[in-house]
C-alpha cells in the first residue's frame, strides 16, 4: 500500500503507529483525537503485528501503562489532547526521570480548563518547558500536514529510543481532523530484541534490572541530573529540525509551526504581492528549538512576527534567539479560532512594519 491515500491526520498517526512496529498503544478517548484509538481498534493490530491495544480507565492510567511497557523495553505510545496530556504530566516526568523512551501525541485544543475542542497551539509551554516536575525536557515535533503526522511517528520513536527519553508529537485539532493525501512507509517488523536495561526477567547471565527515578541521596541525584542535562545538550546540538521558505531575501520573517505555518505561507504570498519581502521560518522540533538558525538570520531582518494560535508562547523563544537585535511581536487567535491569512498580513503591517 505504498501509494497515496486520503486520510485524517489522527488516522495517519494510527496507521503509521502499526507500521512503525509499535508494541503497545494505551490511550483514552478525548476530542479532537479519538480517531486514533478508534482507527486502531478497527485495524485489529493484534492480528497484523501482535500489537497490544488497550483503552485505559484514565489518562493517568494510560501514561503509567506506557511507563511499565517502556520499562520492559517495548515500543509504546499514547495519544490525547490538552486536558488529557495535563493528566499525564507526572507520568511523563517519571519517564524522563527513569530515562524511558515512549511516543506521546498531543492533538491540542483550546484551553485552559475544559476549554474547547477546536484547534489551538496553547500547549507549547507545557511540552517544551516541561509540564511536569523537575529539570527534564521533552523532544517535541510539530507536524504541519497529515504526511508529517505519519512520518513523525517513526521519527519520534527513533529519537526516543536513541536518547531514552519521551518524545512528543505536538499537533492540533485542525491537522488531526483534516484529510490530506498521505503515503506510508512499509511495515517495520516489531523488534524481538529488548534493550539490556529492560525488565524482562533477571536471567542468570545478568544482574537484575531496576527501573526507577528515585534516589534519596542528593549527591547521586545531582549526578543523575547532570547526566540528563548532558543528554539534553547533545540533543540540542544534533537534533534541531526546521524548514525555511523564501528566507534568502527576507526583510521580515514569520516564525510559525503546524497549522499557523500553513496559513503564513498564504500570508507570505499576499504580502510579497504588495512588495513586502517576508519569509517563513517553520520550526519542526519545538524542543530542541532552532535558536541558532533564527539568530543567524537576525542580521538581515527588520522584524519578526511569531504567529501562534495562542496568547504567544513560542514568541519568547524567538526573542531569546535574536537577543533583542530584532523587533519580535506575536500575533494569534485564541480559544480555538484559526486566524485568516489577511489578518496576519494586516498585523505584520501595523505591528511590525508600521509599529
Amino acid at each position: 500500500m505504498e501509494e497515496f491515500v486520503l486520510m485524517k491526520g489522527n488516522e495517519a498517526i494510527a496507521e503509521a503507529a502499526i507500521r512503525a512496529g509499535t508494541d503497545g498503544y494505551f490511550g483514552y478517548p478525548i476530542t479532537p483525537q479519538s480517531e486514533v484509538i478508534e482507527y486502531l481498534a478497527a485495524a485489529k493490530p493484534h492480528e497484523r503485528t501482535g500489537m497490544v491495544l488497550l483503552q485505559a480507565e484514565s489518562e493517568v492510567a494510560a501514561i503509567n501503562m506506557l511507563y511499565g511497557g517502556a520499562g520492559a523495553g517495548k515500543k509504546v505510545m499514547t495519544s490525547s489532547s490538552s486536558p488529557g496530556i495535563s493528566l499525564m504530566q507526572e507520568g511523563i516526568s517519571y519517564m524522563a526521570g527513569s530515562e524511558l523512551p515512549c511516543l506521546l501525541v498531543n492533538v491540542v485544543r483550546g484551553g485552559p480548563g475544559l476549554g474547547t475542542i477546536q484547534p489551538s497551539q496553547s500547549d507549547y509551554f507545557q511540552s517544551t518547558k516541561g509540564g511536569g516536575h523537575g529539570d527534564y525536557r521533552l523532544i517535541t515535533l510539530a507536524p504541519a500536514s497529515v504526511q508529517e503526522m505519519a512520518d513523525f511517528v517513526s521519527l519520534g520513536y527513533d529519537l526516543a529510543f536513541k536518547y531514552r527519553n519521551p518524545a512528543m508529537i505536538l499537533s492540533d485539532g485542525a491537522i488531526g481532523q483534516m484529510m490530506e493525501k498521505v503515503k506510508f512507509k512499509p511495515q517495520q517488523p516489531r523488534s524481538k530484541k529488548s534493550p539490556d536495561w529492560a525488565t524482562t526477567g533477571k536471567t542468570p547471565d545478568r544482574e537484575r534490572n531496576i527501573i526507577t527515578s528515585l534516589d534519596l541521596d542528593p549527591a547521586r541525584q545531582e549526578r543523575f541530573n547532570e547526566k540528563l542535562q548532558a543528554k539534553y545538550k547533545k540533543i540540542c546540538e544534533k537534533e534541531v529540525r526546521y524548514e525555511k521558505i523564501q528566507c534568502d531575501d527576507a526583510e521580515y520573517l514569520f516564525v510559525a509551526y503546524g497549522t499557523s505555518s500553513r496559513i503564513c505561507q498564504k500570508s507570505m504570498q499576499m504580502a510579497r504581492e504588495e512588495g513586502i519581502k517576508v519569509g517563513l521560518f517553520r520550526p519542526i522540533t519545538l524542543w530542541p528549538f532552532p535558536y541558532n538558525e533564527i539568530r543567524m538570520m537576525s542580521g538581515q531582518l527588520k522584524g519578526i512576527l511569531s504567529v501562534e494560535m495562542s496568547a504567544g508562547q513560542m514568541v519568547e523563544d524567538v526573542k531569546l534567539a535574536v537577543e533583542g537585535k530584532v523587533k519580535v511581536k506575536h500575533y494569534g487567535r485564541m480559544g480555538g479560532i484559526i486566524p485568516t491569512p489577511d489578518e496576519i498580513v494586516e498585523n505584520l503591517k501595523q505591528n511590525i512594519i508600521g509599529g
Partner: protein
Amino acid sequence: MADDTISTKELIKEENLVYKKSKILTDNEFHYCPGCGHSTTHRIIAEVIEEMGIQSKTIGIAPVGCSVFMYNYMDIDMQEAAHGRAPALATAIKRLLPEKVVFTYQGDGDLAAIGTAETIHACNRGENITMIFINNGIYGMTGGQMAPTTLVGMKTSTTPYGREVSLMGNPIKMTDLIVNLPGTYFVSRQSVHTPGNVRKTKKAIRKAFEYQALNKGTCFVEVVSNCPSGWKMTPVESNKWMAENMLPFYPLGDMKVPEK
C-alpha cells in the same frame, strides 16, 4: 543406651538445616521498622519465587510508600511505580510480555486511596497479574497519617483525636469490593502476625503466583499487617492490637477460590 544428647555446635551443620533466608533476597538489610509486616511479606514472596523457580521470569512493581525500596531487597527485575499506579504498569507489562510472571506490591494508601481506579479497573479487566496488598491502616513512610483503611476511632497524625466517620468516612474494605468483580480469580485476605498465619499467607501467595499462569484473571492477596512505629506500640503489642481490632473488621480467609 545411645547418647541422646547432641551439642548445639554439632547440630549446626548443613545436613541439619531446616530453614534459612531465601537467596532471592539480596544482602541489603530491610530498612523497615523492627517487627514490620512488610519485611515478613517480602520474605514470603522471595521464598515463593525461589520455590517456584521463577526468578528469571518474574517482574515486580514496587509502590510509593514504606515499600518504595522493595527493589533493593529482591534479586529480580523490578520497576518503581508512581503512587497508586502499579496495577497500570503491571497491566502493560503482562500484556506485552504474557509469558512472564508479573506482580504488584502496594500499601493501603497506594492501592485503596490514590490508586483506587487502577486497582478496580485492573481487577475488572481481569489482568493476569498477582496483586499483593499490605493493609496496616496507616501511611507509614510519610510519618503515620490516616489511610483509607484506618479504623474508626484510630489515632493517626491526621486523625489525632481518632478517625471520625462524619469527617473522614468509613474505612474502606477494598478486597470486599474487588472480590465481586468477575475479573478476579483468586482473592484472599491473610496476615503475618503469627507463625501459623505466615504459613497461611505463604500458601495464599504461592497460589496467587501459580494461578497466574492459568490466565483466568487477577489473583489478589491482602495482608493485614501491623505498623509498630505508626501505631506507637511495640511489635508484640502491635500484633496483639491488630488481632483484636483490625481482624474483626478485616476478617481473614480465602474470599474467592476457583471452583474445583
